[in-house]
């Protein structure tokens, strides 16, 4: 695992930055982050599987304004790393445990970042009001820099959790136990995805379109 650490850390940082700071091109979307992590590790199957799983968890949140939400991008990166190095075929259980904790940590770190930015803005308020372009540039780039540190720290913490899980939990987890964990993780993701879908769609006419889509999906699933 140690050989892949710099790459995972760098990629997790890019993914974390993409969520809010720059460039918001959805590299932080779990499906993208997971698939590209899998590609980098030579394990596209695990990347896609965990990318889909965390994408379903992502449906549970709308990143609107000052709302608090977990951060699933770096979480997916470390989860794919966990699944790859765990080596259990289709075993997403332990990887999801690590990923969900990292997502929670990422969410907390975003609140801390916002508070730090608020403090910095309050301190620079006189210079900002005076139209000091250097103060403005410094303040804005410092916010960016803080997010780089935050994203790197969250990814590093997640990778630390991966190491702990692989060292202490994986050896005592039986095959049955891993399967049970995978069932719980997949079930929770499907439930979060379905509940999030209903929240996005809302009420009224859109529900009929959702029902039509469901019918179409069932037919295609049956035919495929």
């Amino acid at each position: 695992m140690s050989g892949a650490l710099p790459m995972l850390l760098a990629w997790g940082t890019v993914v974390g930055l993409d969520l809010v700071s720059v460039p918001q091109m959805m590299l932080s979307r779990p499906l993208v982050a997971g698939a590209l992590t899998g590609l980098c590790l030579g394990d596209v199957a695990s990347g896609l599987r965990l990318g889909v799983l965390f994408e379903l968890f992502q449906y549970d949140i709308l990143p609107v304004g000052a709302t608090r939400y977990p951060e699933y991008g770096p979480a997916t990166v470390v989860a794919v790393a966990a699944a790859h190095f765990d080596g259990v075929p289709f075993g997403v259980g332990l990887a999801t445990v690590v990923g969900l904790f990292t997502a929670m940590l990422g969410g907390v770190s975003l609140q801390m970042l916002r508070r730090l930015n608020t403090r910095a803005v309050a301190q620079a308020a006189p210079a900002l009001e005076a139209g000091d372009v250097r103060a403005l540039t410094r303040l804005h780039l410092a916010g960016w820099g803080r997010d780089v540190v935050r994203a790197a720290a969250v990814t590093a913490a997640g990778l630390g959790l991966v190491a702990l899980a692989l060292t202490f939990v994986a050896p005592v987890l039986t095959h049955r136990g891993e399967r049970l964990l995978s069932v719980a993780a997949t079930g929770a993701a499907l439930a979060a995805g379905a509940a999030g879908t209903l929240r996005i769609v809302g009420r009224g006419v859109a529900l009929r379109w959702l029902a039509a889509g469901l019918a179409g999906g069932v037919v295609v699933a049956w035919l495929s």
Partner: protein
Amino acid sequence: MKPRLGAAFLRLFTVQASWNYERLIGVGAGFAAEPLLRPLRDGEDGRYRAALGRGTRYFNAHPYLSGVGVGALARAECDGAPAEQIERLRGALAGPLGSIGDRLVWAGWLPALSALALAAAALGAGLPAVAAFLVIYNAGHVTLRWWGLSSGWNRGVHVATALQEPWIRRAGALLAPATALALGFALPLVALWSGEAFRGPSRVTLALVAAVAFGLLRWRPDVLSGLRLGLVLVAVALVAGMLWR
């Protein structure tokens, strides 16, 4: 003017980098607007510094549509609009730019394309599905950012007309059912694909866990989130899994 508009456009991709509870994206919007305000530096009357000072005040918008406000407010400054009018414009734009963007992007374009990518991945498209999602999503994303900035800059204090353009209403009307359709289409495919890794009793257990968890999430959305429920479920399964020999 084109290079300055280009510089402002590139800076818009970082508009949320200094997001804070006091001014929200105000500092980022001021940073993005700065290249557009540079012509004001030529005068000796301090208009540039006054405009920049105003440009960093409280502002909120969907990040992809923040260019509408950045462009319009910078143009109003360059056209010499009174400070009170500029402040009124800033306040008036914040609400609509947030709600239109949330509706079109966060609750429309993004989940619709994400659902189609999930469905394609479940049907075996793999990496090409992810690549197509990135390319198509960002084609819309970058176009929307550019439209916003150029509309704001071209219309200045009359930017409200840009938000009344028919395509916005049409896009909203089209995206709502399209998103619902795509999400509905994806769910059974993803559920089936996710269940393929399990056999027999495990698959039945998966269906039960998903159904009960969904019920709980619908029953107490004020208390339970996907993350919380997921953590509880995997924690219970982890303990049970370590004990189950």
